[in-house]
């Protein structure tokens, strides 16, 4: 039986517009889950789960990857249009609605393009659909497929007879599995992909019409606020509901273990009630002092893991003519979304709908089901874009909180976090310290390299079953994911470099099989994961930016000791052609002059300038970037002003060069802000950087450096991620440029004027730096 897709869409899709709540049981039966994740009712093996052609010729595609400002709505609409040979205007891409979109887990880790572009999922669905339509047309036109051509959804035979997609399949199911051998269109034939198509959301954004999750309004909706503990680990002793009795419009004070919130008729009433509600809290434990935090980190029991260990590092270092040691530190940093997180939940006795800006629609559905004690198939999560998240911001927690408030109030609730709700309790980018040791041989090459890092970790994405990984779950009594102390096992299996723990210059050999990007065979990389006093979670380039800062700055220290040019010295220790490719490309584009650092004749006064370079194979194989930074350093104040960035990027075939440039420019400037000013602060009880006066970020008045972008695109390679690659190398390139300008080595991030000044003074006194 051919079921009308349109009817199916009507039954579910219309919800998005009307916010009515159709019974979730209308949805098709459960089938095995996709992508090695969890069961889903949308079978990703079936073409109809991904794509439908309406009788008006419009193509609706469904994806489990969502656009939160990185541009994939446009890029993946291009993908569908390209593979289906239709104009992009005929494609409507629906993202991350658990009642109609496939479960693609979380939109993260620079995986959206590799996942949907390369050979599976959305790309394969569109290619399968095109081939299926061609077969149907061949039958209808009585000509072999080879004779047919397609243009904008019209298939034409040699005789000139033609048929439209909608005549072949309009409003009907394909009833086909995805065809693993369906042919992708060749890049040489692209008319939509690879073009700088203007982002589809821009007009609505610029004219204030765009609907963010903050704008979702549901009939009968109330407003909520949460009342968070005043400090880490505090627990509720007593909530005095009488304290808010005088607030008009107050509907409910909600207390579930340590979770406290209020629901009122208006936002203003909810904010008043949250401010006024008297809660007695039992204090939490004292926090380790920020001043000595990295020393503290290094002394804690840790979960140890070796990425690589040739077991000869000490022996080889004994032969070195020169040994260099250094410790780098990277602070906790924040996602700090410009909009405090928001969600709307409509929890009814037997079903729930949550409008959420989560990156993880399906996992969020699972957690909401768990927290509400409601079966999975009764919960629907609809993705609506929030403020840019850069990873796990407050979007998941606010969605859980909204669901709890709505369930308690028995009405739809919109929950808006306050700025401190967002910043005091988000899952921070991990603090990390890296200790490195390497030796140079007589020939000037690196003979052995050893590195250990200590990473602070508590919680993570909640996934499908760990609500305790974010604040809401902890307040409800769920445990966060914590590192379990254990000693390291010898490295085994295939070499992986997911967190860029291993410098690009390591050979990466495990049991004789070498997967690293470099030539250094005497190598060890050991990671100690330590319990963090604060929640941590993925923040754009998680651990990759921390590790790369240490690895690439330390490489620069080795270059300086070898008196070598930083590009030539890197090339001497690299073997991955794609890292080499971006390094050479950026050196050429930046007009890099071969010489060692620091610059000769470094001035002792005024403003000096320098250049620095850094490169990375993101996650080992998910994008390649090399960046040259040119900076000015004011020697009196220690102020660093980047003037110019030149970046070379290799992410394989590019879906939309304009969108990609936007991502790279933003990534580099965000990396600059993180490198120069961003740092979470705390006292003995709580995070103290809880707004924009206490957490530093570069504002729009900052003197913006230029960013020049060069693409390197080898033939016949799959697409990789791109949004996290350039940011990864930014702090390191700036640090190396400061060294080039001044001869002072900055090993602590961020490079605040005070820190730079102090290092300059130490360096001038003949301290440890050069």
């Amino acid at each position, binding site marked *: 039986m051919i079921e009308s897709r349109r009817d199916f869409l009507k039954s579910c899709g219309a919800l998005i517009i009307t916010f009515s709540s159709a019974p979730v049981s209308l949805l098709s039966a459960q089938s095995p889950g996709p992508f090695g994740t969890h069961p889903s009712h949308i079978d990703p093996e079936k073409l109809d789960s991904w794509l439908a052609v309406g009788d008006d010729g419009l193509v609706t595609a469904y994806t489990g990857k969502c656009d939160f400002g990185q541009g994939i709505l446009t890029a993946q609409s291009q993908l569908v249009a390209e593979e289906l040979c239709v104009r992009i205007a005929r494609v409507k891409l629906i993202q991350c609605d658990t009642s109609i979109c496939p479960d693609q887990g979380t939109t993260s880790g620079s995986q959206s393009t590799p996942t949907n572009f390369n050979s599976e999922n959305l790309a394969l669905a569109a290619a399968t659909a095109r081939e299926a339509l061609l077969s149907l047309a061949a039958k209808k036109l009585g000509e072999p497929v080879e004779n047919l051509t397609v243009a904008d959804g019209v298939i034409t035979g040699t005789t000139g007879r033609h048929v439209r997609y909608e005549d072949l399949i309009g409003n009907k199911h394909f009833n086909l599995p995805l065809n693993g051998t369906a042919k992708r269109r060749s890049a040489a034939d692209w008319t939509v992909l690879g073009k700088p198509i203007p982002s589809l959301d821009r007009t609505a954004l*610029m004219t204030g019409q765009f609907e963010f999750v903050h704008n979702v309004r549901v009939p009968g909706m109330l407003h909520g606020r949460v009342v968070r503990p005043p400090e880490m680990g505090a627990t509720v002793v007593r909530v005095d509901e009488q304290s808010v009795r005088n607030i008009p419009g107050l509907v409910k004070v909600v207390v579930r273990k340590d979770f406290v919130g209020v629901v009122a008729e208006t936002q203003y009433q909810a904010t008043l009630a949250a401010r006024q509600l008297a809660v007695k809290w039992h204090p939490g434990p004292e926090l380790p002092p920020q001043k000595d935090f990295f020393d503290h980190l290094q002394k804690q029991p840790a979960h140890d893991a070796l990425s690589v260990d040739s077991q000869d590092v000490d022996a080889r270092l004994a032969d070195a003519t020169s040994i260099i040691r250094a410790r780098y530190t990277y602070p906790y940093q924040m996602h700090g979304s410009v909009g405090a997180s928001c969600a709307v939940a409509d929890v009814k006795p037997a079903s729930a709908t949550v409008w959420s800006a989560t990156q993880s629609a399906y996992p969020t559905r699972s957690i909401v089901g768990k927290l509400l004690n409601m079966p999975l198939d009764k919960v629907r999560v609809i993705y609506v874009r929030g403020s840019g998240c850069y990873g796990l911001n407050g979007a998941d927690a606010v969605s859980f909180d909204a669901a709890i408030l709505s369930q308690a109030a028995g009405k739809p609730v919109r929950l808006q976090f306050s700025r401190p709700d967002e910043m005091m309790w988000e899952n921070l980018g991990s603090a990390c310290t890296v200790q490195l040791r390497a030796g140079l041989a007589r020939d000037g090459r690196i003979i052995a390299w050893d590195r250990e890092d200590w990473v602070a970790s508590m919680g993570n994405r909640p996934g499908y079953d760990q609500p305790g990984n974010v604040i809401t779950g902890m307040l409800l009594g769920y445990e966060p994911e914590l590192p379990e102390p254990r000693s390291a096992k010898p490295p085994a299996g295939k070499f992986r470099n997911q967190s860029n723990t291993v410098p690009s210059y390591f050979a990466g050999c495990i049991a004789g099989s070498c997967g690293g990007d470099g030539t250094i065979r005497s190598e060890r990389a050991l990671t100690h994961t330590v319990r963090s006093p604060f929640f941590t979670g993925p923040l754009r380039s998680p651990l990759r930016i921390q590790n790369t800062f240490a690895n690439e700055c330390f490489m620069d220290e080795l270059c300086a000791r070898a008196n070598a040019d930083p590009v030539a010295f890197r090339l001497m220790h690299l073997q991955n052609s794609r890292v080499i490719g971006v390094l050479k490309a950026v050196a050429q584009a930046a007009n890099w002059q071969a010489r060692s650092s620091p610059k000769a004749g470094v001035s002792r006064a005024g403003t000096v300038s320098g250049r620095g370079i850094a490169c990375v194979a993101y996650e080992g194989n998910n994008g390649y970037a090399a960046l040259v930074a040119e900076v000015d350093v004011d020697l009196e104040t220690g102020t660093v002003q980047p003037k110019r960035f030149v970046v070379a990027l290799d992410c394989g075939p590019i879906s939309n060069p304009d969108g990609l440039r936007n991502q790279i420019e933003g990534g580099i400037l965000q990396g600059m802000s993180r490198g120069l000013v961003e740092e979470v602060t705390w006292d003995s009880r709580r995070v103290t950087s809880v707004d924009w006066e206490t957490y530093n*970020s570069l504002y729009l*008045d900052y003197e913006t450096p230029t960013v020049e972008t060069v693409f390197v695109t080898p033939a016949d390679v799959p697409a990789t991620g791109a949004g996290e690659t350039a940011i990864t190398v930014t702090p390191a390139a700036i640090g190396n440029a400061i060294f080039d300008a001044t001869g002072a080595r900055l090993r602590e991030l961020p490079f605040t004027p005070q820190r730079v000044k102090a290092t300059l003074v130490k360096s001038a006194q003949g301290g440890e730096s050069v």
Partner: protein
Amino acid sequence: MREKITLNVNGQQHVVEVDPETPLLFVLNDDLGLRGPRFGCGMAQCGACTVIMRGQVVRSCVMPVRAVGQDEVTTLEGLGTPEQPHPIQQAFIEEGAAQCGFCLSGVILTAKAVLDVKPNASDQEIRDALGGVLCRCFTHIRMLRAIRKYAEARRT
């Protein structure tokens, strides 16, 4: 506590019945259904809630609605429409000067306000005016390019 308050927003008169202490932002979002001004921090630190009143940018998240009076309030959607964007919106569209776009009210309205007062504002003056506006996607390069483009077009 509720009072009837008349507001002039984007060329239209609205009567709302709210607590007069309610921040203007909440009234714009919840009572008038406007999407342009957005809650970023609620503390006048980021600019996401920016509106224009008497030619000045105002942080609507900290302005009580009672203080608005008869002044005309202009929000991002009051500048132009998708069909007929204001020239500064058009410049932002042409430059693709957004990523998530959450901060745009602050960026566009602040730039417009400074150029309305000072059409020949230098890059430095424009940047100074944007001192309290935060874009955490760091779309600075395109935003400043769009503003410059608008400023130049405005002069000729």
